[in-house]
């Protein structure tokens, strides 16, 4: 067959000419392949990954994914299958029309109505002989959508507000034939949606020749949350209370429309707490718009438990809890926050979070590297190292991995593209992986961007001074010192051309000077206070660590099509993070406090309010944490009510999460007073203090019981092989409940004679005192009256008091209150 390809092509060409001559009462060029046909292929879903956009095509027909490569699609549509796919002599006989209209069987179902404008576009293009666009044909420059954001309040169903109807919409620019039926407008009566929840989206394409075209009927609409329906022409009908982002796509451009469907709550009265700082102002402003009342502020016991788990990874001891609850000092929460931020466990807890992301694990870094790098991180947090400096030192880390701890960052990332993906994901909040093989379907990044950015890291190389690995087959294993250095000759090649692309910072037009040290340049560019994205990523990550959810969420997925749930809030905490001095910080607070007048009376006076941090430098982690933790928003209860029960994204209540592996294990150890055992570490090392992942390969040959390690793994401690928060799991599994119900560790801890239960039973304490201490220790509260009655009776009547106390403790350790952070 291949041998004949040349004559066939000639024959096809003649046919093509013939088609051109016979069909087309119109000049062929008027249906644009790139601007019309490609739009139809997208609109009809032909080029989705599940259909012909699949990397292997479908049914022998392959299009580029989401139409990213019009040239390739043109070739496929015009030069394959001997003209059966597109037949200009008999356009209606073309498979391109017959299959999607289901005139003949099509696995993908019916995609086109014969009387639809899309069908007509394809038919006319085929009839015209499948012309390609002239080189000077106009190309798409911008896609603009209106509105970009809208809060749609439900209206009482009886009244149909005319304003919400798809009003005098710009008529879709007529296609050349003039034969197109007018774009179908959705019939609002046909939808079950509340009339207040309807919105026409208008998409306008701006072309290189300055022309503007309404492409609302040609664009593709995709929803982040399936709570609305979007008609063919962009008419949105909300179906449920909530927020959704509609991604509008036309050709190679995308834009986002953020819509909120606000319930009809005519009796809504704002009942939120008095704002404590600018964060509350911004959060509450949005909640008011959504007619959502936040939960009330939580009680002291819940607060100390929450803030200690969030900042230190540890629950309060019974004494800490009781003392705090009894304390009558009005500013005790602020005082507690300040004292927790200076505890050594804070630095350890934050070092652990970063160690997850920086891939601090033994196989590649070796035990010494793991311990050095981890200790360096811990010290950085303990010593208030500003976050920009921390990141600068990490991304510019070179030298001996034993002498320069942050050089281990690149020791862990062995190839240029692992490095570029990691730095992008961690510090720029972008997931570039998609654009390695094809242009990113939901973001602006192209393959060119990917390989230009990758080559920034192309010169990093290693001098392996020693490698005492145990398995000579294992090229991932390193045990011994290495020097990370810049190799003059190092490059990262683009596999499409087998040539390196000129190195460029991501999204930055300037090409790097070949002579310059790319890593120092990278560090400067990346961490500049003016680098908005970098600052936002850090601020958002910090927010997410204590709030349980990012303002942009997931926190490493910033893109136009995944907008922040509260842009002003993200902006404000970002500004706060980099504000140069005290005055500037106050200005940030004051500006935002002024937004909402009714609450302005409560604006704290920065000079007297101990909640704000005096002094403080830009990129100070504690300063940002302090303002977040002192907000009423952070301190809201997790209890929900009718108006905020469905809210996940607007911080109207505290989010409940399963406690992490380390939080659970360290708390169980603290409750039962049994130190944990990890191989190679002294007894009493807490799980949150472990520098690496595995403790079973200690060089000294020592072996722990191993069940503590297994517990951590089971509850989602990550293996640290990905530069992503997503690697840590907070899901609940059957294996976990088995471990908690009948697992070896929990049983061993409960039954060990000299644990807290043994101490309590041997003391002179009354049963009531014993139970009180047990409750305060596990749940940071005393037993309720019901609980006292039941457990006192249970303990009092027990033949085996020890067993009964074990059973009660088991019940406490397996309770939602213990397992969940709220």
């Amino acid at each position, binding site marked *: 067959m291949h041998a004949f390809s040349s004559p066939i092509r000639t024959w096809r060409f003649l046919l093509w000419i013939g088609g051109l001559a016979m069909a087309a009462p119109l000049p062929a060029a008027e249906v644009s392949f790139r601007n019309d046909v490609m739009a139809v292929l997208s609109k009809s879903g032909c080029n989705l990954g599940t259909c012909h956009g699949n990397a292997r095509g479908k049914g022998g027909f392959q299009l580029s994914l989401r139409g990213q490569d019009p040239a390739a699609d043109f070739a496929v549509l015009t030069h394959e299958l001997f003209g059966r796919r597109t037949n200009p002599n008999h356009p209606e006989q073309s498979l391109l029309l017959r299959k999607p209209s289901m005139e003949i069987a099509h696995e993908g179902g019916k995609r086109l109505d014969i009387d639809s404008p899309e069908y007509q576009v394809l038919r006319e293009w085929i009839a015209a002989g499948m012309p390609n666009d002239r080189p000077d044909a106009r190309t798409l420059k911008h896609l603009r959508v209106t509105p970009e954001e809208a809060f749609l309040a439900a209206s009482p169903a009886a009244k149909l507000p005319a304003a919400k109807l798809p009003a005098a919409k710009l008529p879709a620019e007529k296609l050349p034939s003039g034969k197109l039926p007018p774009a179908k407008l959705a019939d609002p009566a046909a939808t079950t949606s509340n009339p207040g929840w309807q919105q026409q989206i208008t998409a306008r394409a701006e072309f290189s020749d300055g022309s503007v075209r309404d492409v609302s009927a040609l664009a593709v609409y995709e929803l982040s949350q399936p709570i609305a329906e979007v008609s063919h022409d962009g008419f949105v009908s909300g179906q449920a209370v909530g927020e959704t982002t509609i991604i509008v796509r036309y050709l190679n451009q995308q834009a986002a429309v953020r819509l909120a469907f606000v319930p009809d709550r005519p009796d809504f009265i704002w009942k939120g707490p008095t704002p404590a700082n600018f964060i509350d102002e911004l959060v509450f402003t949005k909640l008011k718009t959504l007619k959502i009342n936040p939960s009330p502020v939580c009680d002291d016991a819940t607060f100390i438990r929450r803030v200690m788990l969030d900042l230190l990874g540890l629950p309060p001891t019974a004494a800490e809890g009781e003392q705090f609850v009894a304390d009558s000092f009005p500013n005790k929460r602020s005082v507690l926050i300040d004292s927790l931020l200076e505890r050594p466990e804070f630095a350890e807890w934050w070092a652990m979070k970063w160690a997850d992301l920086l891939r601090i694990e033994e196989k590649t870094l070796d035990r010494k590297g793991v311990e050095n790098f981890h200790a360096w991180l811990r010290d950085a947090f303990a010593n208030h190292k500003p976050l920009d400096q921390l990141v600068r030192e990490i991304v510019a880390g070179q030298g001996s991995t034993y002498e320069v701890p942050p050089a281990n960052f690149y020791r862990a990332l062995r190839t240029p593209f692992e490095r570029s993906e990691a730095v992008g994901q961690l510090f720029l909040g972008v997931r570039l992986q*998609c654009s390695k093989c094809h242009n990113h379907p939901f973001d602006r990044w192209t393959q060119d961007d990917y390989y230009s950015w990758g080559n920034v890291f192309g010169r990093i190389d290693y001098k392996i001074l020693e490698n005492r690995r145990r*398995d000579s087959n294992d090229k991932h294993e390193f045990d011994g010192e290495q020097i990370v250095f810049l190799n003059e000759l190092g490059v990262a090649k683009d596999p499409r051309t087998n040539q390196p692309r000129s190195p460029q910072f991501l999204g930055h037009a300037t090409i790097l000077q070949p002579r310059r040290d790319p890593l120092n340049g990278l560090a400067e560019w990346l961490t500049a206070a003016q680098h908005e994205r970098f600052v936002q990523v850090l601020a958002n990550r910090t927010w997410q660590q204590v709030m349980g959810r990012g303002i942009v969420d997931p926190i490493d997925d910033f893109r136009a099509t995944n907008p922040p749930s509260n842009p002003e809030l993200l902006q404000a905490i970002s500004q706060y993070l980099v504000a140069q001095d005290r005055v500037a910080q106050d200005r940030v607070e004051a500006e935002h406090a002024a937004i909402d007048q009714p609450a302005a009376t409560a604006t704290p006076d920065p000079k007297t309010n101990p909640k704000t941090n005096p002094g403080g430098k830009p990129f100070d982690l504690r300063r940002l944490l302090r303002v977040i933790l002192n907000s009423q928003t952070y301190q809201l209860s997790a209890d929900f009510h009718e108006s905020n029960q469905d809210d996940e994204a607007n911080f109207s209540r505290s989010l*409940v999460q399963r406690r992490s592996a380390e939080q659970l294990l360290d708390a169980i150890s603290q409750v039962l007073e049994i130190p944990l055992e990890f191989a190679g570490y002294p007894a009493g090392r807490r799980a949150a203090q472990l520098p690496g992942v595995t403790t079973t390969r200690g060089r000294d040959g020592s072996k722990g019981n191993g069940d503590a390690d297994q517990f951590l793994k089971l509850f989602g401690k990550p293996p640290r092989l990905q530069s992503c928060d997503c690697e840590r799991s907070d899901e609940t599994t059957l294996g976990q409940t088995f471990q908690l119900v009948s697992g070896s560790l929990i049983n061993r801890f409960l039954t060990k004679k000299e644990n807290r239960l043994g101490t309590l039973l041997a003391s002179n304490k009354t049963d009531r005192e014993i139970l009180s201490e047990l409750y305060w220790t596990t749940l940071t509260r005393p037993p309720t009256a019901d609980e006292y009655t039941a*457990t006192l009776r249970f303990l009092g009547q027990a033949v085996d008091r020890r067993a009964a106390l074990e059973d009660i403790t088991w*019940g*406490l350790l397996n309770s939602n209150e213990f397992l969940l952070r709220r």
Partner: protein
Amino acid sequence: MPLIDSRMIPRRKAIQIGGMGMLGLTLPRLLQAAESTDIKRGRAKSVIFLYQFGGPSHLDTFDPKPLAAAGVRSHYGVISTSAPGIEICDQLPKTALVMNEVSLIRTVHHTMKNHNPAAYYALTGHAPPLDDIRLRDSQELFPAYGSVVDKLAPATNGMPTFVAFPHVLRDGEITPGQHASFLGKGHDPLLVTSDPNDRRFALPELSLPSGVDAGRLQDRREIQKLVNRQVQQLEQSVGARGLEAYYEKTLGMLTSSKVRDAFNLEAEPQAVRDRYGRTTYGQSCLLARRLVESGVKFVNVYFANNIGGRRNEGGWDTHGFDNTRMYPILSEYQLPLTDQTLPTLINDLKERGLFEETLIVWMGEFGRTPRLNDNISRDHWPQCYTVMLAGGGVKRGFVYGTSDKQGAYPDKDPVQLDDLIATIFDLIGIDPQTELRDKLNRPIPVSAGRVVSGVMA
């Protein structure tokens, strides 16, 4: 008070806590129903995946080439089988009697030459990024088949969807592809590493700690519920999703007999146990039958925990290293073990009426070199090898694809490994094109292969 009352409850009643009827209704299951899945009615309800770690020689098992030159052809002869026209190695006489029940695919091929990457490919149906001898397991790699089934079409009868035993595969490092990876730990297999051939074989997960009987467990549960009642809203929070359901399920499995019974090999007649052979692998095959009988949907049985090949233990990796020789080891170990278990399993499933609804897959990570090496043994050969499919939805007494005269390359109807896996998913009613989402939320099809409809009955 409930706590005291529970003391009055007879033990028999206490055992009913956490009734099995609740088990199908975990929240994750309700949630997954909302995701886009394409579950057709499969021809097979369950799969027994008999994984032959190390890589069996196709020329010395199911694709003999008696006419090939010395140095290529097997030292063994061939025998005719119950399927007219199908010949296999004469060391598998009992297996020959069930060849009328199975399909052989003699042209499976891929390009991974090392055990871990090839095994990962065989266990997940997705090619690894590199043919890396110590391919590192991470959540960027694909989940095991059973985990995909648990995600898309979980068992709803109180039994686990996916059970794997009696080993963890390892070649230097743990072989990737044995767990749920990016689908989340909730879809990991119930992994059993105790030896089914051990007299005291029991699931540690299904045993209560010593000193804790069902009565105490009931007390504990009551206390837990009492505490949970104090903050009732917590149970409804997103963070608590599934927690209570998992407690129900755990307690149900600890106290009810259904799951425990399925694992109780003592309940089998001695004759049946003997027929499977008193070996770890033999009893594992028997356990697999018991599990599918009780409603487990995917069972991975691992032939060995390591690639083996030097002694009469481990897997099929018979290079002849260290002055060992392949043929004596095959004759004394792998082939007799196979000939005892494989036909026994097929016949047992048939006798119990389970064969029609159970898909058996017998495969390793690759075949072995057509040319005997200097050790009169064979090395790795992914370019062409044989996989056996039998049971639910598969043709009987059938060979798909022909290898060349040496058994070196596919001659007719080559089958990519992806295609084979797509076929398996299709047979159990999961459209291989169904999209999964990885940790970065990228859509990835269950399998990129094309279904080999030629082997379907």
